[in-house]
């Protein structure tokens, strides 16, 4: 077993665990908020206007005008 590698691994783990313990909860809640907003935008048709680039606004093929949404405008 490589002791130096083992020590480095332990140090990485300790650092990440400390960071996670301190900021992990906040990070997860930010991700959850983003996930909920994204799901609403992507799954509810009423929000299409917010995520589909209007026809003619930019010269893009149909498949590219909807960066966040499947439906072609």
């Amino acid at each position, binding site marked *: *077993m490589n002791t130096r*590698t*083992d*020590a*480095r*691994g*332990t*140090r*990485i*783990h*300790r650092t*990440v*665990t400390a960071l*996670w*313990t301190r900021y*992990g*909860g906040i990070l*997860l*809640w930010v*991700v*959850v908020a*983003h*996930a*909920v907003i*994204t*799901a609403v935008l*992507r*799954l509810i048709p009423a929000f299409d206007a917010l995520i589909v680039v209007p026809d003619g606004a930019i010269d893009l093929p149909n*498949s*590219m005008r*909807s*960066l*966040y*949404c*499947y*439906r072609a405008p």
Partner: protein
Amino acid sequence: VISVVAVRASCADRLAEKAFLFVFILPLGATMIAVWIGQLGLHVTAALLGAAWLLVGDGSEAATTGPSRSRARDAAAAALLTIALVKPTLSLPLLVVILIVAGGWRPTVLTAALYGVVTLIAAVPQGRSPVTLAFEWLSREEIMNLPLGSVNVYLWLYWLGFEGSMIPVSLIILIGASVWAWRYRAAPSWLLIGIAALVSRLWIHHRAFDDVLLIVPAIALFQATKTGPAAMTGPAIMTAPGRRGVATVATALLIAAVYVLGHAPYAYLSGEHPGRWLFIEVARTIVWLTRRAHVARSPVPAGRGDQCIGAVTRAPSLDA
């Protein structure tokens, strides 16, 4: 069903972790497309996860000992697995591994019997034998639009010019995954199920909307971080404290990588811009295979007992 099983089976204990697992599937590009074009990936995934939860629970000893399960539980799981077989291209390898991990003959026999009855009921009004219908279905599979596929063996064979060997390769993968799961059936249930889900996603032609199945390895990886290094046994080289720490950090990063890549706009994943977006295909492939190799080579918790109960006491945060 998908969200609830994700929370329960992942051993998440903090509220933020439970919320993350609960919403994991909802914003993914694959979910959106499956909903909007009516693909069955979400239904199949829900049925498979429901069956897996009924048969193995969180992977603890009591749930995974075949004979200790009630007949009603096995029957309900068999019904769900039969529903999942509505799309065998997505469900078959995962279904086989779930049955192997679950143990006991009853779920397997019930699933086969139910599927046989349902197939006969469907075949009789059409006046053709189930075998004929199966071959017709397979011939339909051969005319699939391979260039629109996403991260699967058929697409890679198509790129390499080996279209003729697709079905044999799929069968080899299916048999190989089954033998592998049988060989390591004593390993933690959700690790085997998670890897089988990746095999199900890779073994045959799939488009990007079938990425909904990736929730399964995400559950397995999350459980791996929660049941964590304290319970790991195995070769000394893999269980040294430093290696275990790096393995846990790598596991968490892989969950994050797959979650982020799952948000890529569908146009980038659909094969409509294969040259321009090849790097996303390559990145996703590397992440998936890394996950598979990482999970397969990770040291395993000692036995299956008390997965989540142990996780609460052993790992209040990421894995501390």
